[in-house]
């Protein structure tokens, strides 16, 4: 009970501190604007009138997932390391709270603080689409696309962004993360062995493909690790979401001992 309450306290305050960060909002707004105005013919703005709202909003969610998570990964990269930098590590270690609760709270707080601007972007997109498609169902589908396409990838990114900087440094992690993002999500698997198009893409390729009824990006395209590239569909989308969530657990489990090690060498 105490652990749950403490986790909740950390979540609330991490969220509060993060959501006040101007960099979070500036990054989100900049990337969203860039994506909106640079989208190609396959982008949601060019979908013909009468396109089902499900496809429109899934397309928006996928478009935003191209770059927004990079910004979120950057912003979240210092959440566990900054306590030491700020001189709060000793105090936190002296409080009667387990490191597990601390890590869980920081994870949930960080995740929700990035989920809010991500959701807001989709809401704005839905509002913009409603202006000329006149279909209130767009908002409902924005919510669905957010949960299926955006959120699992965010959960995955937040876990790694929180923990990896404990192994390297926040700046090095940020550089590696950008490289990974393009290689693991967008690099054509035909050109170079990559994770693009597999179930392991945090971009949300499989769920978006399922919602759109046609290949969103590379989901299921032939390439490296063929067994991770099933035919897209409902089951594959669920498998992709489950895999991303499952993959978020190992880094989080490692966070406590890593944090302990780091604080002891303080």
């Amino acid at each position, binding site marked *: 009970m105490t652990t749950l309450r403490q986790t909740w306290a950390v979540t609330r305050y991490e969220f509060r501190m993060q959501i006040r960060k101007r960099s979070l909002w500036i990054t989100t707004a900049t990337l969203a604007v860039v994506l909106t105005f640079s989208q190609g013919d396959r982008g949601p703005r060019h979908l013909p009138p009468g396109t089902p709202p499900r496809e429109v909003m899934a397309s928006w969610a996928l478009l935003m997932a191209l770059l927004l998570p990079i910004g979120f990964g950057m912003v979240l990269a210092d959440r566990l390391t900054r306590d030491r930098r700020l001189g709060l590590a*000793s105090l936190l270690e*002296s409080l009667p*709270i387990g490191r597990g609760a601390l890590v869980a709270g920081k994870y949930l707080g960080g995740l929700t603080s990035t989920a809010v601007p991500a959701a807001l972007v989709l809401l704005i997109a839905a509002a913009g689409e409603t202006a000329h498609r006149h279909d209130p169902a767009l908002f409902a589908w924005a919510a669905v696309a957010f949960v299926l396409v955006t959120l699992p990838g965010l959960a995955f990114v937040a876990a790694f962004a929180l923990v990896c900087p404990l192994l390297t440094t926040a700046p090095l992690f940020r550089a590696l993360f950008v490289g990974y993002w393009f290689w693991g999500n967008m690099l054509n698997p035909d050109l170079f062995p990559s994770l693009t198009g597999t179930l392991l893409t945090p971009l949300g390729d499989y769920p978006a493909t399922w919602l759109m009824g046609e290949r969103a990006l590379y989901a299921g395209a032939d390439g490296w690790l063929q067994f991770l590239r099933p035919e897209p569909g409902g089951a594959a989308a669920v498998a992709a979401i489950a895999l991303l969530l499952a993959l978020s657990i190992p880094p989080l489990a490692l966070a406590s001992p890593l944090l302990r090690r780091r604080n002891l060498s303080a």
Partner: protein
Amino acid sequence: MDIQITGLRRTFGKVTALDGLDLTVPGGMYGLLGTNGAGKTTLMRVLAGVLPPTAGTVRVGGHDLATRTGRLAVQRRLGYLPQDLGLYPDLSAREFLDYVGLLKGLDDTAARRRQIGELLDMVGLADAAPRKLRGFSGGMRRRVGIAQALLGDPALVVVDEPTAGLDPEERIRFRTLLATIAAGRTVLLSTHIVEDVAQTCRDTAVMTRGRVVFNGPVADIVQRAEGVTWELVGQGPPPATGVVVSAVSRPDGTHYRLVSSARPDPRAVPVQPSLEEGYVALMHAGANG
């Protein structure tokens, strides 16, 4: 809560920070004096359950810090102000205290708010409470630090050099505040400043190189310098033997006060030592012994 430490060792690689330290702290306000690197912070981190000892036993209020349950039991009743405590710049003072209070397990919202209000009053930050911590001065930050330590009415308060870097008036206010809260609890105060201890603590321990070299009433420290404190008026540089504690230029020459086991100069006269000279004598005996 009383503290009983026996044979405490803590090493960092090749560095021995605590070297078989024995100490018993009964209660009330207790000073911990020592030079840079003596091991004060390491000792306090061990007491706060932040660092595990390499060897030895530490019991606080009967709880063994080596066990997880013991550590948690102590941490629930502990207030700790670390040396160089940082604060979250993007929270207000009130929010920061609320956060620490929640982590200390103060779950009753109304009671927590009331306590935070009282503590903010006590440390003179009531007006600054809604302001972001990023704009706080060094003294204000220290006061937030002591307020967070006192949240939850701890039985043991461990404060690591709380007066370093404060202006004289603020320093006096701060140590008086510490002395007032010592009623009914144990307050362990570490400092380099002999005067802080002299004004607030009845008993003190003095550490050098990871050991306790003195443990007892503050007044007894003075005795350590009796017979080894000298005054000398000279024109040239200070004598080569002994440690110069003060040097004041006057029309008739420079007045030196120094601590030395042997008469440093034929013209030197023995004088009544001060607390500071007692401390210097002690550190010197420790360094040579």
